[in-house]
């Protein structure tokens, strides 16, 4: 027996609705993040990540209520990301019932924010999200840079160095998304995943690009990820969480079934 590799369905939520759409819930509840979370919880998901992409202030209040509702009905860990910029934002989400918060661009604008957050709330609840894109030319040694604004804006920051810095600042986990692979369904960028997983001592969640169950296995075995995150393969009912876990177990990956 060993620590299980985690499977984490991710919900992109805008103004209180899951925006990518979810096939498996009936029409009445389509896109309700609480219903979707409950379903994943029943399916045996190891954790849920809730990514708030709401832009408006009013929308943020909706998010807090949604998180409260999920946390009172779903008894597995819940990570909330998107728009976490201040210690108050973190406190609000933790009080609403989130177990961890994911910090992305705020860490880039002010790396000390991660330090402050970890000091105040403990590393165990501070996830730093990294959006990486390969910037090396063909034939060169691979190199990845952090991008912001959904992969449009380069920052000049090396992704592996950044991951090391963020863990030194107190991040308890890294959520790594490959912007090259995101939405492509070709599998994770295994090179950047293993490079970062080997460079840091904290768990790494691989994200971006899952199109089939072998991709999840590869993320763990080749990418050395501690957890794998996916959205659309689960949302659209292509695969269920138990199917994913059974497949991973059959391939020799330790999972919680």
């Amino acid at each position: 027996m060993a620590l299980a590799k985690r499977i984490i369905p991710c919900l992109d939520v805008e103004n209180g609705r899951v925006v990518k759409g979810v096939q498996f819930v009936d029409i009445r509840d389509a896109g309700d993040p609480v219903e979707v979370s409950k379903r994943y919880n029943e399916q045996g998901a190891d954790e849920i990540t809730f990514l708030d992409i709401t832009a408006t202030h009013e929308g943020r209040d909706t998010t807090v209520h949604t998180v409260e509702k999920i946390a009172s009905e779903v008894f597995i860990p819940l990570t909330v990301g998107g728009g976490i910029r201040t210690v108050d934002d973190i406190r609000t989400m933790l009080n609403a019932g989130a177990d961890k918060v994911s910090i992305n661009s705020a860490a880039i604008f002010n790396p000390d924010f991660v330090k402050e957050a970890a000091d105040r709330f403990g590393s165990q609840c501070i996830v730093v999200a990294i959006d990486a894109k390969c910037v090396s030319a063909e034939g060169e040694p691979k190199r990845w840079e952090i991008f912001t604004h959904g992969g449009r804006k380069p920052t000049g920051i090396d992704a592996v160095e950044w991951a090391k810095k963020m863990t030194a600042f107190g991040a308890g986990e890294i959520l790594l998304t490959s912007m090259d692979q995101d939405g492509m369904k070709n599998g994770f960028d295994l090179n950047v995943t293993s490079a970062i997983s080997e460079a840091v001592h904290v768990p790494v969640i691989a994200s971006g690009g899952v199109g089939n169950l072998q991709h999840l296995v590869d993320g763990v075995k080749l990418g050395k990820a501690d957890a794998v995150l996916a959205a659309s393969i689960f949302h659209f009912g292509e695969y269920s969480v138990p199917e994913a876990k059974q497949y991973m177990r059959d391939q020799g990956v330790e999972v919680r079934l």
Partner: protein
Amino acid sequence: MSKATIAVIDYGMGNLHSVASALEHVAPNHDIVVSSEVEVIANAERIIFPGVGAMRDCMAEIKRLNFHRLVPELIASGKPVLGICVGMQALMTHSEENGGVEAINQLPGEVKFFGEHLTENGERLKVPHMGWNTVSQTADHPIWHGIEDNAHFYFVHSYYAKSEKKDLVIGSCQYGLEFDVVLAKDNLAAVQFHPEKSHSNGLQLLKNFSQWNTGA
């Protein structure tokens, strides 16, 4: 007649909402209160002593609120008490976190760091120990009722407890090394994992706690 109460001790460290909602879910015949008031806690039928974050900060708040005296009194009173995560660690004698912190000493033993060079079968292990691991039930206990041996529970911690007294260990876990994850002594039980985040196994454990008859 009013319902019996389960009090969740609040000393400002961590998310108690989840513990309270999990209890509301499994113990509908109890009132669940989250409180830092000595009187409210002392009047409860059962007490949960949770905690997350750094040991130094936790112990500082515990002492400031006088819980380092209250908690031993509650334990001595015979009421069922459950420590969770850092709550469990705070019940031990001493922790090596933050350069060494004296704890409440209700369960003799040390809290130690996993270290940054933990390995298992030649593979490097990440610290914190974060995620779902199996718990071996090393002794029978009412809180194990209805839970299979080697069931998964959710952990997140970088320090682990090692009891001085083997006979208090009722659950153990393996992560690079073997460590104690459930300790029990009379009316006191303490768990390193988060039952409130451990899905059906965790809910069953909390339900068992809510029904645990310690003879008090």
